[in-house]
């Protein structure tokens, strides 16, 4: 009915518009994929081929496995340790941060209490506060309490996410009051209600928050750069950056394969958990 034959032109897009739009979309795809494609191709080349063969296509000699072995062995196996550190810091921040955020979001969504508006204002302020600007002050503070060069200096701030609380608040609002009231009448304690009912109902929301915390921590650079000194404690992003800067030896081939491996976990999380990304961004955008 809506596609009334009286107005066929205004409903069906013209050929010109179809060509322009799709050419534009594909061109943009090429721009966004180009560095990733180059990284994949370059990681499969031996050091010699890297400089001598055409850079946008594979060379005859695929050296990916050899590169992988060398990146793991170089410098006493630091690369694997860095990956482990990144997993440890990001995983811990995600698990603790999601519980902290959910509990705070639940309190804000479902309780009236003294000081609530102050908490809300603080969280909104925290959302807008530039996080990198806070990192240097954080360094003074952790330096004065002796936490510098300690993994906790990276993990604790990564758990404190106003955005996580904000998402927790939005998700917790979806829990019907009747469910909570009914559980109270049945005599369930507040903490049991939270852990056995609320968290169970909000499992998808928890995945979203954990995902943002994990990727945020994995991708953070300035915080570990400022806080950590020992080579053994670095996350993989920082470790690769120090390799990139070596003047004495050219580690380009190792940095490339190392970078590719380091982005794989986030890309896998990204591709498998797409709808959770979407729900986090949508919630943030609509409310923000």
């Amino acid at each position, binding site marked *: 009915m809506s596609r009334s034959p009286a107005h066929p032109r205004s409903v069906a897009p013209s050929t010109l518009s179809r060509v322009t739009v799709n050419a534009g979309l594909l061109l943009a795809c090429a721009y966004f994929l180009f560095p990733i494609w180059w990284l994949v191709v*370059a990681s499969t080349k031996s050091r010699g081929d890297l400089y001598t063969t055409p850079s946008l296509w594979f060379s005859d000699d695929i050296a990916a496995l050899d590169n992988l072995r060398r990146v793991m062995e170089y410098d006493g196996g630091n690369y694997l340790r860095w990956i482990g550190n990144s997993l440890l810091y990001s995983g811990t921040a995600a698990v603790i941060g999601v519980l902290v955020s959910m509990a705070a979001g639940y309190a804000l969504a479902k309780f009236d209490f003294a000081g609530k508006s102050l908490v809300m204002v603080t969280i909104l302020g925290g959302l807008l506060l530039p996080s990198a*600007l806070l990192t240097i002050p954080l360094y003074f503070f952790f330096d004065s309490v002796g936490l510098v060069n300690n993994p906790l200096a990276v993990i604790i701030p990564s758990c404190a996410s106003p955005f996580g609380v904000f998402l927790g608040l939005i998700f917790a609002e979806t829990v019907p009051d009747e469910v909570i009231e009914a559980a109270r009448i049945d005599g369930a304690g507040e903490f049991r209600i939270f852990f056995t009912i609320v968290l169970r109902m909000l499992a998808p929301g928890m995945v979203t928050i954990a995902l943002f915390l994990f990727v945020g921590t994995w991708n953070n650079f300035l915080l570990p750069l400022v806080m950590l000194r020992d080579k053994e404690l670095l996350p993989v992003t920082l470790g690769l950056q120090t390799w990139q800067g070596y003047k004495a030896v050219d580690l380009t081939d190792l940095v490339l394969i190392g970078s590719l491996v380091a982005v794989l976990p986030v890309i896998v999380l990204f591709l498998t958990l797409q709808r959770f990304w979407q729900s986090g961004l949508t919630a943030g955008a609509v409310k923000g």
Partner: protein
Amino acid sequence: MAATSTAAPPGADLGARTRRRTTHTLTAWLFLAPFAVVFTVSFLGPIIASVWNSLFTVQRSATGLEPARRVFAGVDNYAEVLGSEVFWQGIGRVLLFGVFQIPLMIVGALVLALMIDSLSARFVALSRIVYFLPFAIPGVIAAIVWAYLYSPSLSPLSTALEAVGLDRGLFLEQNVLLLSMANITTWTFTGYNMLIFLSALKTVPSDLYEAARIDGASAWSIVWHIKVPLVRNALLLTVLLSIIGTIQLFSEPFVLRKVANVSADYTPMMMAYNAACGNNDFGAAGAISVVLAVIAGLLAFGYSRVQARFSR
């Protein structure tokens, strides 16, 4: 609850309700407590430490024999930062960066969102994934990969530059460097902004478009008169976040230092990092952080005021 209120005299009902409110306040704060702790440690403590540090300076004895002393400096650190040419050069670079990078990225993201949302689009799912993909990649790794792509020895881009008669190292030349950094930021965040626009566009009921089309509205007028006004709030949000992000510009110039001529104080954020971790000058670093936070706040506030005036 029902049992007590029927059995008790009328006045006690109020008492029971107040008691219930108080226990709720206690319960709510117990739920909030873990966040309150990490927030205090990660936000409030540092802010206080920063302001405190900015008021002191470390005095080293002229002979170097006595230990350095920390003395109260009042606003001296602020005066030094605000009077420093290097600081204002950094601010200038960051502003220049923002003035062309933010509009470029936001308009690009909006155009991509509108194209994906249009009836003509065919590769919707693919495009959405591909555009957002860079956002998942760590900023430093993106900067490292682009740094190699800018370097004349390895890059297919350099080969292309040479083919059209330009210098192989063009991207790392002083007057192009800021553009090269802007490209890294644009590559990373365009897809993220596009998704925010796209979710704003999806809140529109599709029969609104149907109605407009049946009334004979062209695709362009639908875009201009319906879609663009609808993403206004998302536009405010993305520009604000971009302004805040630009003020703290750090990893792109920090990484490009390894391949190009970038000073250690290239941006204000690098200056603060250098003061804190390079020179152990906590006073200067504290003052820079406070000044930057104030500038970021003023810019964000100013922008939202201008935006509010234009939208009414």
